[in-house]
């Protein structure tokens, strides 16, 4: 049976043409800050990539495991606060150690939360994410002595970016921060894609498709749901580390339910279950938000209208639009 036909997977691997396209895109993005000095836009794109990473991590949960988290931003927030606090109180120069501590801490918080949450599914799971998220939000908001409460965490130092003992830049420089973010997000995307197309990813998809059937083929559904949750939270914590380094500041609003809904919109705008779709979704969302907020302070209303329009006319998100054009070309 070794001569069996190629495997009829619904995931196809990247064609060489697409791969070359992606490499070119990456190089173009990496060269951008050298040819375009606009600090404001460089920082905006950095923020888009960070939220793109967060939205992608939510996609691992929602698009691949079938679990809805209303407040995935809570784990970005935890990562960001811990990295910030480490830089302020422990060591202002240890960038990588601070990030490691932030991500590990995010995982340590996510573990017991996930352990409880995976005992449920569907709406109950989603409501638990809301309950825990609001709890974290309140803790951060009220613990003035540690977090700065409403004022947020200020005065986070900008460490140098050390690579193999060499200082290659500083996180306070927008161009350097942009490049650091680009590399981290690209690596995270590649690794996550790899994980999603592994046998482990197949288990997550089976759970998304039919939880009961998954249990009846011998899958320990709770355990794998927990693994999916941990993967999503660790990625969110990574986004948090980048966030605090990029902004040098974080306030509790970033961890609010309102912001959580925004992340969910990014995923839905971009298209579920694609990983790259939500990154595009983050781009659309943050660009619109930024553009409209220069014209009116009530930008949320207009953003809401845009989102309603997109949901009604592009129900499968930006990715769906791509498929739509593909169909047009074929006809």
């Amino acid at each position, binding site marked *: *049976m*070794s001569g*069996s*036909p190629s*495997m*009829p*997977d*619904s995931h196809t691997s990247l064609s060489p043409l697409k791969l070359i396209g992606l490499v070119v895109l990456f190089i173009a993005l990496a060269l951008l800050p050298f040819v375009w000095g606009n600090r404001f836009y460089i920082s905006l794109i950095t923020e888009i990539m960070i939220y793109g990473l967060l939205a992608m991590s939510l996609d691992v949960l929602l698009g691949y495991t079938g679990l809805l988290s209303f407040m995935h931003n809570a784990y970005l927030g935890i990562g960001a606060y811990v990295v910030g606090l480490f830089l302020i109180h422990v060591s202002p120069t240890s960038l990588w150690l601070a990030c490691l501590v932030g991500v590990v801490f995010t995982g340590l918080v996510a573990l017991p939360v996930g352990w409880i949450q995976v005992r449920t599914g569907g709406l109950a799971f989603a409501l638990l994410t809301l309950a825990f998220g609001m709890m974290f939000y309140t803790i951060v908001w009220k613990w003035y002595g540690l977090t700065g409460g409403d004022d947020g965490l200020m005065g986070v130092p900008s460490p140098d970016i050390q690579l193999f003992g060499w200082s290659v830049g500083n996180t306070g420089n927008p161009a350097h921060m942009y490049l650091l973010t680009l590399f981290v997000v690209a690596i995270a995307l590649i690794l996550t894609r*790899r*994980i999603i*197309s*592994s*046998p*482990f*990813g*197949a*288990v997550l*998809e*089976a759970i998304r*498709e*039919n939880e*009961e*059937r*998954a*249990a*009846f*083929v*011998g*899958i*320990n*559904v709770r355990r*794998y749901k927990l693994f999916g949750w941990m993967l999503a939270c660790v990625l969110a914590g990574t986004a948090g580390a980048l966030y605090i380094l990029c902004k040098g500041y974080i306030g509790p609003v970033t961890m609010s339910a309102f912001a959580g809904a925004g992340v969910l919109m990014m995923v839905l705008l971009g298209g579920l279950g694609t990983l790259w779709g939500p990154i595009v979704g983050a781009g659309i969302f943050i660009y619109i938000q930024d553009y409209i907020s220069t014209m009116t302070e009530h930008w949320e209303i207009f953003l809401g209208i845009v989102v309603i329009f997109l949901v009604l006319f592009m129900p499968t998100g930006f990715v769906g639009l791509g498929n739509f054009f593909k169909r047009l070309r074929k006809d």
Partner: protein
Amino acid sequence: MNAFLCTDNLCRHFGGVMATNRLCIEFEKTGLRSIIGPNGAGKTTFINIITGRIPASSGKVHFQGAEITNKPTHELVKLGICRTFQITSIFNNLTVFENVRIAKQANSGGSLRIFSTKKSLKKVACDTWVILERLGLKDLAGLPAKNMSYGDQRILEVAIALAGDPEILFLDEPTAGMSPAETKHISDLIKGLSKEISIVLVEHDMDMVMRISDKITVLHYGSIIAEGAPEEIRTNQLVREAYLGKDT
């Protein structure tokens, strides 16, 4: 307690309804046992308890000498207790191939390889092809399961269960909705399998049951009213009354 799998005074009630009423049934290591009975007799409930879908109200289940009552489903599957569902339960948006492969993978390990490709599990893929071939689904391998015909989905249901390498396989009305040709194919397959493993078949198609069963258990209101070889059941007065009583 020497039987391969047996239940000991197994009970399950839903409110006031005794869906499973003090059932003691023994299954052998091989052979084809049919469980029949009118609608609502408690056949599905009985399977649900043994396979860990719902807990028993009281009573015990023993498998190969060990008690397995109310164990989690995935552990029972690992022991070789597999099933199909009366209401088709498959992975809709996965291809036919993926449906069977995930069952095979869960059974043979490798699910924690987060950095390898699915292709790297060669044995899993090979075994998947063997099962698809055996059930005549090979040509449909690349089709999303939701796009299959109803009858083919029922066959896929059996394929997924077989991928778990069962020692005892519970089939809840596998041929409901199949064409006569498909029914023939599946009943031949079931009969063949029963030489190697224990098959428990719930079925309403009496011709098929009488033709292929080694032994038949008849349930009515959650209790056993008859048990024996097909000829004995055919002529049993109680069984006739149970079925006829329902019609009139």
